[in-house]
Each structure stands twice: as C-alpha cells, then as structure tokens.
C-alpha cells in the first residue's frame, strides 16, 4: 500500500470513529437530561462545539448568539475566563512574578540585617514568621515585602520612645532595652503606640494581605533561611519545599478530569473547553510559537 493510500485509509478510520463519538456524546447527554428530544440535545452539543471550534468568531453565523448559550459563554469569557479560570492560571503567576521581583528587591535590604540579627540572637527578623510580612530595613524603617515603607525610621523612633525598643544604628537592628537582643519587626510594631495615622498594611482578610503573607513572606523566609543556613548540596527552593520527586519530575498540566497531561502533549494537541487557557486568553497561537529560551551547553 502506498503512503497516500495509507494516509487516506487512516483518516477514513478516524472520521468514522469521530462520527461514533459524536453520536455517543449525544446519547451520554441524553441519559443525564431526560425527556428531551435527542435532536435538541444534538443541536445543543453542536452549538457548544461551535464556540470552541471558532473561538467565538463565527458564533453569529451558527446561530449560537440567537440562543442564550452565546450570552452564557460570553459571561464565561468575561467572568470565568478572565477572573476565574484565566485568573487562576495567570494571576498567581502574575502575583508571584511581581511579588518575587519586588519582594526580592525588598529582601536584599535585609540581607545584612538578617545575618547581623542572627548573630545578635534574634529568632527571625521577618516579623511574625510569615504571620506578618513586615521587615526592618537598613535605615530603621519598617517595610513590607514589596519594600513599601510601613513606618519611617523617624516615626518608629518617635513612637518607640519609652517602649523598651531602641534602634541600633551600628548594626542596623532594633534591640530590646531589657534584653539587649535584636527584636523583629513585629515586636517593634507591637511595642509602638498606634496613632490615628497608623496604617495596617497587609491586614488579614484582605486579598493583598493574604497573598503577600502566603507568597511574599514564604519567599522571604526561604531566602532568609538560605542566608542563615550554610549552603547545602541538594538545593532548596526559596520558601517552597525541598526538591523532591515532584519538583524534579516533568512539569505537568492536568485535564479537567484530573488526568495528567504533559506539557509536550499540550503543545502537540488541541484542547477544548472553558478551562483551556489559550482559548480564555483569546490568544490561540502564541502557545505554539513562543521562543524557547536557549539552554546552556
């Protein structure tokens, strides 16, 4: 059999299989949705498929917009797609990205302090051990993980008078007058008299606060831990966990039913559904054409 004949026979076989799958899908839906004519279910399945095949471009040609499915799907694209699914996919990376960038920048301010603090006996100069992601900067300011000033050094000095906490300009840490040991940002903040201008950054219950607490402080804690502890062979990812099988294995994405789908597969095949990130983003081509970072030889 020639190559072309083989290809043709192959497609004929697949086409027949797909026809069966389509009929089976209609039967499957009909089993769940009882007392509805199969022809109606078939039409509904076609309308839903039209959304995915054309990416919404030709919906009006297929009458999907005349039904309420189009509006429902449109709601999905502005609701679920952007703030739900795509949000869940894109936002954490976005938050993580900016958090990492700004957080890392902020953390660099504390590198020296941390080491000094550790030497001076402070348990952690990261306030609250992740509970309250504020830190003490070189100049005595209390800052959040983004490097934003929560309290200026002057404000702290003013509020701290008589609180038992003083700034040590030599070592750039706050120390307890009673014990002479370095104290963390939470202790400093706790000892301050909160005036009317006091602003509770990263308050509990706020999205920003929770994200920063969970992402920023963990990143910071990991970074600080790396700084305090001697270098180790196996490597440790900042604030996440030790490298294990899960981290060393191939990066995996999942189908809606929870079955793993490797990235290689995701690049090589088409995915459909409201949860398909490319469909949600409206960008249907970049996934397969983006540049691949060259690996060092």
């Amino acid at each position, binding site marked *: 059999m*020639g*190559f*072309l004949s083989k*290809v*043709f026979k*192959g*497609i*004929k076989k*697949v*086409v*027949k299989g*797909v*026809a069966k*799958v*389509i*009929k089976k*899908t209609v*039967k499957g*839906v009909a089993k769940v*949705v009882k007392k*509805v004519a199969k022809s*109606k*279910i*078939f*039409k*509904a*399945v*076609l*309308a*839903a*498929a*039209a959304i*995915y*095949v*054309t990416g919404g471009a*030709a919906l009006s040609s*297929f*009458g*999907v917009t005349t*039904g*309420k*499915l189009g509006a*429902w799907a449109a*709601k*999905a694209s502005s609701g679920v797609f952007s703030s*739900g699914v795509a949000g869940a996919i894109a936002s954490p990376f976005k938050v993580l990205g900016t958090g990492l960038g700004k957080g890392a920048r902020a953390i660099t301010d504390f590198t020296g302090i941390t080491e000094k603090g550790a030497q001076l006996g402070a348990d952690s100069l990261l306030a609250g051990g992740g509970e309250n992601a504020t830190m003490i900067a070189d100049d005595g300011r209390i800052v959040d993980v983004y490097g934003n000033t929560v309290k200026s050094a002057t404000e702290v000095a003013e509020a701290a008078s008589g609180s038992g906490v003083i700034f040590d300009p030599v070592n750039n840490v706050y120390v307890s007058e009673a014990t002479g040991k370095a104290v963390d940002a939470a202790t400093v903040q706790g000892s301050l008299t909160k005036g009317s201008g006091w602003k509770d950054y990263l308050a509990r219950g706020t999205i920003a606060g929770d994200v920063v607490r969970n992402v920023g402080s963990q990143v910071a804690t990991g970074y600080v831990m790396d700084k305090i502890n001697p270098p180790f062979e196996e490597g440790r990812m900042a604030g996440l966990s030790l490298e294990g099988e899960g981290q060393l294995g191939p990066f995996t994405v999942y*189908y*809606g039913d929870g079955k793993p*789908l490797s990235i290689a597969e995701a690049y090589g*095949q*088409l*995915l*459909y*559904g*409201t*949860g398909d990130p*490319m469909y949600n983003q409206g960008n*249907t081509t970049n*996934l*397969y054409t983006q540049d691949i970072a060259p690996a060092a030889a």
Partner: protein
Amino acid sequence: MEEQKQTSNSKQRQVLPPRPIVSSSLSDAAGQTVLDALDSGLTIDDIIGEDKGPKIRPRQREDQEALDQMVERTGRGGPVSGQSLTSDPDQPKPWETPPTFTNPREALKHISTLILQPKAIEGTIGALLNGASVTDIATSVLYASFTEGDITPDMMLMLVEPTMYLIMNIGEEANIQYNIDKDDMDEIDEEDPEEINEKINEFKSVFEDIKNSDPVKNVNKEKLETDPNILPQSILAKVKEKAPEIQSILGRQQEQA
C-alpha cells in the same frame, strides 16, 4: 405572597457562570458544556435558540458523469511499488516538504477560514443536500489540505473532529437533515434498541419489586382508625357509612333487570 413567589422564581432562574472544562476531545468538551449550561440554569431551548421548523431532507441524486469519472480514476490503478523513489528529489511533492502549518490552532484557523468562505459554504450545503455525509466532506477537505502540503497527516487526524463539527454546524444552520456517516440522518431521532431494552428491564424490575412486596402487611389498621393525623375521623365515618354501597369491580355484579 405574589412578590415572594416572583422573587423565588427569579432566584431559581438565576444563571450561574460556567465552570472550567478542558478536554482533548471536542465532543467531550461540548457535551460537558451542555450539561454545565443546564446545571447553571439554562434550558435546552435557551441553548438551541429559536426553532426553525421541519428540516430539509437531502435527496440522493444520480450523477452519471461523476460516476464515470470515479470509475475512470479507480481504473487507473495505484502506483507501482517504489515509484515515488524515481521522482526528482529537487522537486518534491507538496506533502514531502515541511508543512505550512505546524501549529494545530493555526491550522484549524486556516481550515475553518476555508470552510467558512461564502462559496465554500454554498458548496458544503449543496453537498449535504445531495446526501453527502459529513465524514466524506471532512475527509476530502482535510486530505486536500494534506496533499497541498498545508498540514501533516498527524495534524490532519487532529483536525478531523473540529472540521466535522464545523460542517455539521453549517448543515444545522441551513436546517438540513444531513448524514453524519453514510445514511444515518435519522439515527439521532431514532430510539436506540439498547435504551429500549434498558427501559424495559428497569420497568420489569420495578414491577417485580411491587409484586413481591406486601405493603398492606405493614399497615397498622388500628392506628389508622384511631390516629386523626393519618385519617380524619370525619372521612373515616363517611367511608364506613358508604361501605355497603361500595362494590368491588371484581365482586359479583348485580344482574340487570
């Protein structure tokens, strides 16, 4: 009360947003989407939109010219073994060169653009009206794309499902009762023998359960007569009063004079 009723109705009709669905199969994704839409509060009529009335049934038309053409082509026979090796390597066939589209989404976009051209839609509707099946049309479109060097055979197979749906949507929009594969245009509406058997078996088992159970055994007649919450005394009294007049339909009938 009326207002409350209206509020509860509007609450019931509140349409929830879709949940995320991802599948490598378009049929699966579409099926799940329909179920999700129904779960969200839409009805099947909401999804399919307005009814276009009875569908146009395709007519099989005999075309002697086309038949002759097909016989002539098949009569030519296939290539001799190794024939492809004799062709000039500097002038490869389109499918022997790298494909135009390596990205399946771009390829799908290209194919759908081709199919959705007004001329192509006209041709597709014409073919469906003449009884051509969706599988045949999809095969020819994709196979042509492959032989023109647009896509690889693997890509061609990946695009079968979306292409078929595209063609079916055209047929649906044109209100044609088309064939999906061969002569199966009425298959969707027909009752599936398997389903019928399932329903019969279900009925049989329920019937057997009723037959074998003895619901009267569990009734406490004394309680039934004394407990006013079960049967009000006034009704019971009426029944007792009328009892002599009530005759069983299985009992001896009075002879008519």
